[in-house]
């Protein structure tokens, strides 16, 4: 049983998706989906534990050995990402569906859970597989289900948002496929470990030079790295809040993982950072993302869109860590995967709680909510403080490593920039706080808190931002090990 865990990680949610359709009854399906998501988390944790104690796990799917067969390969890096994805899935999926946010009636909720599990399976699959083409396959599984999930939003805008995400996502997917094809043409293999061995001799060929361009741009679209982020604000704004929570916390994180894997696992850091000089492109773009994303967030009047633009800025932090390409920087980027997943996932759940009581996600509608829903809004404040990076929250931990990474490289101005951009977060977070606590609502407010079934998942994620802000052994510890592994493996 134990040696089949890597396969079960994707097979369980994948098989569960059609079973949801067979079960039909909304209440049964929900319980079933929760059980599946929790077992995914258990598997992910078990895999992380195995990797940390025994080292990398290689699993030949169907008994076909690599490079011919598909290999599932779990090392510190993707075990860590698996845990992030599975944790968010496990916390978000029990969150009750709210008819006010969904296009479909209650009788068809089973479709929602089916899509959700498919998306989860796809994201876990991308992360666990050691095969480049397989990454593309799982990417399409997760993306197609994500388009449909976004399209379930009640607002009409959800359909166009899903469609433009589909167009952008397909371009991204195609780019990845082209890149994969180009290197397959030169090396005759798709297995990542095998590629890393066979690529260096042909690294000088033009075909191989073009492949990373396609791969990086393709994954950057999926990652919503500035300036390829246009699809993201609408998608997160119009999707049901719970979907926004799940996708913001997982989809972009997995794309970041793919980018890291392409850079460090396939071509090697030396190729990207010395031969091509990726940093000189990625670093300014990351800084631009931090500023432009935050400035855009400041101007939003819709809380979901505000959080979406904030995501673009936060993704900038992650890519910044990558562009620093040293131990502290990379640790900062990787630990921010987990940290941002917690805070943004939690904040979108706060919005979901709020939307169960107010009509619209406009900031104006949130007036007086601090009195009406004190627990929900306290969660927003804590999550917001984490976005700012106040000590004692996870945001601080990420910032700590990123600034340290910048100082290690002697980039004092960049270090200053990282801190300055977190002040922009103060502005957009506090705008919301002021509206919630200082502006009186048009109608008299009475205490009307979201139900416990919504508050518990929200506070698990928000509480996590404080817990992992003070106890970084698991998060920063694993991220540090992963960064060491990547940099050590590359040199």
């Amino acid at each position, binding site marked *: 049983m134990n040696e089949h865990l890597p396969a079960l990680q994707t097979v369980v949610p994948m098989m569960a998706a059609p079973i949801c359709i067979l079960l039909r009854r909304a209440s049964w399906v929900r319980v079933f989906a929760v059980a599946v998501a929790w077992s995914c988390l258990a598997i992910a944790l078990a895999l992380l534990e195995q990797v940390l104690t025994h080292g990398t796990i290689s699993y030949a799917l169907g008994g076909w050995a690599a490079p011919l067969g598909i290999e599932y390969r779990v090392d510190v890096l993707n075990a860590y990402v698996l845990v992030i994805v599975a944790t968010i899935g496990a916390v978000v999926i029990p969150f009750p569906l709210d008819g006010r946010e969904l296009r479909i009636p209650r009788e068809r909720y089973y479709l929602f859970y089916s899509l959700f599990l498919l998306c989860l399976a796809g994201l876990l699959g991308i992360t666990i597989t050691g095969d480049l083409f397989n990454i593309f396959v799982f990417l399409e599984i997760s993306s197609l289900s994500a388009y449909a999930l976004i399209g379930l939003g009640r607002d009409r805008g959800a359909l166009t948002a899903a469609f433009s995400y589909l167009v952008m996502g397909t371009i991204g997917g195609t780019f990845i496929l082209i890149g994969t094809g180009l290197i397959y043409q030169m090396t005759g293999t798709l297995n990542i470990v095998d590629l890393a061995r066979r690529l260096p001799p042909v690294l000088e060929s033009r075909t191989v030079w073009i492949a990373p361009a396609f791969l990086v741009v393709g994954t950057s679209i999926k990652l919503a790295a500035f300036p390829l982020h246009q699809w993201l604000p609408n998608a997160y704004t119009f999707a049901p809040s719970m979907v926004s929570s799940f996708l913001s916390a997982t989809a972009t994180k997995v794309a970041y993982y793919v980018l890291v894997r392409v850079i460090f696992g396939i071509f090697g850091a030396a190729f990207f950072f010395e031969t091509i000089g990726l940093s000189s492109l990625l670093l300014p773009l990351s800084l631009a993302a931090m500023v432009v994303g935050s400035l855009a967030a400041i101007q939003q009047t819709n809380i979901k869109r505000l959080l979406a633009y904030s995501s673009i800025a936060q993704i900038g932090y992650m890519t910044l860590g990558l562009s620093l390409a040293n131990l502290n920087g990379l640790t900062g980027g990787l630990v921010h995967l987990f940290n941002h997943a917690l805070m943004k996932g939690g904040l979108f759940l706060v919005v979901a709680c709020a939307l169960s009581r107010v009509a619209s996600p406009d900031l104006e509608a949130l007036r007086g909510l601090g009195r009406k829903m004190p627990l929900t809004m306290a969660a927003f404040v804590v999550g917001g*403080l984490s976005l*700012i*990076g*106040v*000590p*004692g929250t996870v945001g601080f*931990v990420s*910032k*700590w490593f990123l*600034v*340290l990474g910048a*100082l*290690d490289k002697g980039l004092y101005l960049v*270090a*200053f920039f990282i*801190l*300055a951009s*977190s*002040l922009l977060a*103060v502005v957009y977070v*506090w705008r919301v706080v*002021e509206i919630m*606590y*200082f502006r009186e609502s048009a109608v008299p407010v009475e205490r009307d808190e979201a139900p416990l079934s919504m508050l518990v998942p929200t506070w698990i994620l928000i509480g996590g931002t404080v817990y992992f802000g*003070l*106890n*970084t*052994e698991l998060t*920063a510890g694993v991220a540090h090990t992963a960064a060491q592994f990547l940099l050590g493996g590359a040199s």
Partner: protein
Amino acid sequence: MTPETAVGTAVLLPLLGAVGIALTGRWPNLRESVTVVTALAVFGVVLSLVPGVLAGDRPGLTVLDVMPGVALAFEVEPLGMLYGLVATGLWIPTALYAIGYCRAHGEENQTRFFVCFALAIFAALGIAFARNLFTLFLFYEALTLSTYPLVTHYGNDEARAAGRTYLGILLTTSILFLLLAIIWTWKLTGTLEFSPGGILAGRVDGPLVAVLLGLYVFGTGKAALMPFHRWLPAAMVAPTPVSALLHAVAIVKAGVFTVVKVIVYIFGIDFLSETGASIWLMYAASFTLLAASLIAFTKDNLKARLAYSTISQLAYIVLGGALATATGVFGSGMHIAMHAMGKITLFFCAGAIFVASHKKNVSEMDGLGRRMPFTLAAFFVGSMSIIGLPPTGGAWSKWYLALGAAEGHHLVFVGVLMVSSLLSIGYLMPVVGRAFFLAPSSDPVENSKSEGDGLGLPVKGFWSKIHEAPLLCVAPLCATAAGCVVLFFYAPDILGLLQGMRLSG
């Protein structure tokens, strides 16, 4: 109770008190009892640490390791001991005063008010007992955030604007400069622990020392060194008890405490005096010192005048640290206590005047001394301490600051201190003079108004002319005024405590 558990208890108690206040919010009398009992208990526990610290112990407690080498940990050393004593000791009269003030004034949201107050004390104690820069920074930000609801207590546009200035300046400086300085220090030394003699000596040299010092000093916005002082006058929109404890004691002292602590235990005074990296800071502090005094003259609003006086007095403490001599540091430490006692008295008086007569401006206070003799007598004593006249505590701290300047051969700053004392006579004494020597502007409505509703405890009895604020307002301010005089005689003990600081490694 072992000293270790006492440290933990002292820090944790205000937090538990905050929870207790929140839970008993429905029953005001019970809630207020929780506040007072917590304040007394915290002070008792902090006091129990004193003998050990005097004997040279450094009781500490590691809560958890946040990152390898970065721990959430506490350790009590003399300077922190003193700051902890000041913050918790003055919480007791302030708690009583706040009860009287809030009830007489019919404040809303009193539960939130008292909860945030207790949280602020929790944060202040965390700062006082922090063993390393991380812990200090954590509680520093917690103090900013927990006092934001107090500053914006009234919830109107003015309060909101003040809140923006408050958060804007304090968060901006701390994140942009202080955090950068801390991370930089970590990169240079690989540690964040406060150590005798500092940790930076030999790790950094040249102009970088001065730059790093600048990042620390300006990063500590709570020290209100110009040009980052605007938040303090803005915060005066808060109810007066908040101005009293937080903007005369806990918050601003947290700022200067941080500055002095960094100078002593991160840079080391020997290292600073060798490199001369703090000379610019002496001038910067002197500028703030004089400029704020001059601005105080222009303020007619009593609380605003006191706020600028605070800015000026804080610069004394920064100056004492920047002198980088042992005597200067002792003078700074003493001034933390002396100024706290004096300024809290003045704020209490300002609040009492406001409660009893609804007057905010100095120009309206003619003849007020006849109606409120106790309050204005206390104001006089508090002013003496701020000016630095015997027999009040302020005389000693100024003495040691001047001595520190002389020892460091920076005679010009002795002159600065003296001029500033004269200036403070100029902006404080008119209040007392007007109140006692000028005839009241005739205002029959004002005079016939009965005072002391709220608790129903007016000071009655000897002259019918007297219309003081409620007893719960007047008693604390008389107590702290007496405290100013008492401190004059206990100054050697404070000095003795501070002399236990390990200034070199």
